[in-house]
């Protein structure tokens, strides 16, 4: 019997006795071990190692820039606020990896050598929702001069604001930061079961039908719970739940329409800011008819 046999580098160098004896013993049993005419290193453990150092360079480099801002006196603290849930999640996870895995931190530093500055690990990453929570809901309420009275808003967290644990802005099971914000703006908060479900994320590029399915479920649930509007903190969620409603309608003709806005837009409305600041003309579907109907804009 002829069997392909992969010896590997060690059996050709420091473990030749292993190679020789195995070939001979197998041959004695009628098993011919045939070495491939072309072969390369098996990859050793490197192939199985979770080597993601290269992918941490981009986020950590941004945190280094924040450190430089502090050093230059541009900001008061070594703290950075993110808005996009993806950016928040990425920055915070890389920061955590850098600060808890000294081996990885060492490799990152090696990969960033010959550069003017080295990241210390000392930047704190937070989401604006956390910044506001620390600032105080009472202070947010105090600034409201156009309470979102009678506006039924469902907060939608999606994945990246809450997961994984230890990274999320709030409890992954029972979050309330988004609800607290909406309440402090005077809105009527609508709780619904799908607020932590995934919006379909990047499936939107190649499989918009997956996003349409998820959008249909999430938005139908929100509407069934009484929501007139959904608030989000993530541009990809906003796109998938908003712009992709056209796809939802194609697949589920009975689905109506519900406006999706960023929580910051609702803040701007409640603070009585102008059209340029609320920037409501960029959302799909257009949230303005509803807000006009409620007398908020």
């Amino acid at each position: 019997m002829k069997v392909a046999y992969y010896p590997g580098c060690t059996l050709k160098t420091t473990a030749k006795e292993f190679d020789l004896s195995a070939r001979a013993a197998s041959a004695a049993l009628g098993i011919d071990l045939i070495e491939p005419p072309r072969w390369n290193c098996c990859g050793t453990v490197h192939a199985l190692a979770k080597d993601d150092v290269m992918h941490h360079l981009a986020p950590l480099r941004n945190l280094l820039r924040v450190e430089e801002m502090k050093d230059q006196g541009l900001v008061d603290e070594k703290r950075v606020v993110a808005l996009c849930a993806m950016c928040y999640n990425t920055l915070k996870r890389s920061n955590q990896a850098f600060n808890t895995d000294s081996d990885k931190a060492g490799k990152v530093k090696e990969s960033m050598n010959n550069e003017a500055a080295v990241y210390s690990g000392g930047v704190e990453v937070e989401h604006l929702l956390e910044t506001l929570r620390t600032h105080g809901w009472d202070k947010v309420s105090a600034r409201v001069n156009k309470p979102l009275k009678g506006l039924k808003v469902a907060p939608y967290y999606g994945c990246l604001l809450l997961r994984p644990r230890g990274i999320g802005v709030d409890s992954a099971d029972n979050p309330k930061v988004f609800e607290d914000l909406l309440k402090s703006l005077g809105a009527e908060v609508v709780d619904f079961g799908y607020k932590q479900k995934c919006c379909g994320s990047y499936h939107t590029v190649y499989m918009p039908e997956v996003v349409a399915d998820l959008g249909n479920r999430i938005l139908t649930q929100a509407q069934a719970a009484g929501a007139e509007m959904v608030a989000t903190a993530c541009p990809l969620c906003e796109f998938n739940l908003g712009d992709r409603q056209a796809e939802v309608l194609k697949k589920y003709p009975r689905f109506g329409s519900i406006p999706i806005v960023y929580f910051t837009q609702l803040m701007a409305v409640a603070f009585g800011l102008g059209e340029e600041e609320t920037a409501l003309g960029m959302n799909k579907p257009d949230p303005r008819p509803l807000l006009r109907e409620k007398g908020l804009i």
Partner: protein
Amino acid sequence: MSENGKMVTIYVLGKRHVVPADLTMMKAMEYAGHQFRRGAGCRGGFCGACATVYRKKGSYKLLGALACQKIVEDGMIIAQIPFSPSEKKTYNVSDLKAEANTFLQYYPEIARCLACNTCTKACPQDIMVMDYVQAALRGDVAQAAKLSFDCLSCGLCAMRCPAEIVPYHIGQLARRLESKYIEGPTEHVLKRCAEVEEGKYNAEIAEMMKMDKPTLANKYNTREMRIK
């Protein structure tokens, strides 16, 4: 021999040469008998023709420089990159928009940038290459144009990029978009263009066309320079 008589050993395309220590790589290569047919231009660090890669004794690092600017060091191993292959897209800048999608349309590979900064480290002009590629990616055309302004298109960044991006094309596209749509055509350029069209310089050009080479060279070398 160098002014103080010091000599160093360098390796050009694998051959050992002993050359004066104060020569640039380019002059050292010529001292060693190489004649440049490509890979040499202005000799003043402005044209980007003499991109060269090298390693230093005892180091695994691959470094890059302009051969006309970098002084040789003992043990240097040198190879020229006289040409960097790249696909240059053709476009009419008048049909474009100064936005991120323009870069992605012509050079979609820029989305592969991992911000590893290898390009920046490779740049002999000390340009923040990665930063301008990133600026282009997010549609900050003005910033991409500003950061890439000193680029000579020597190609070292492109040869080192693990994502196979050709940064200098991005910088060039950014500067074109910036000058057309953001900075806009400046008044003095418009004025000079009008003068050219009106034929203001026709007589002078006709006169120069008749000059023999030495006269023309003399005119060029003694020309009035106005640098603000």
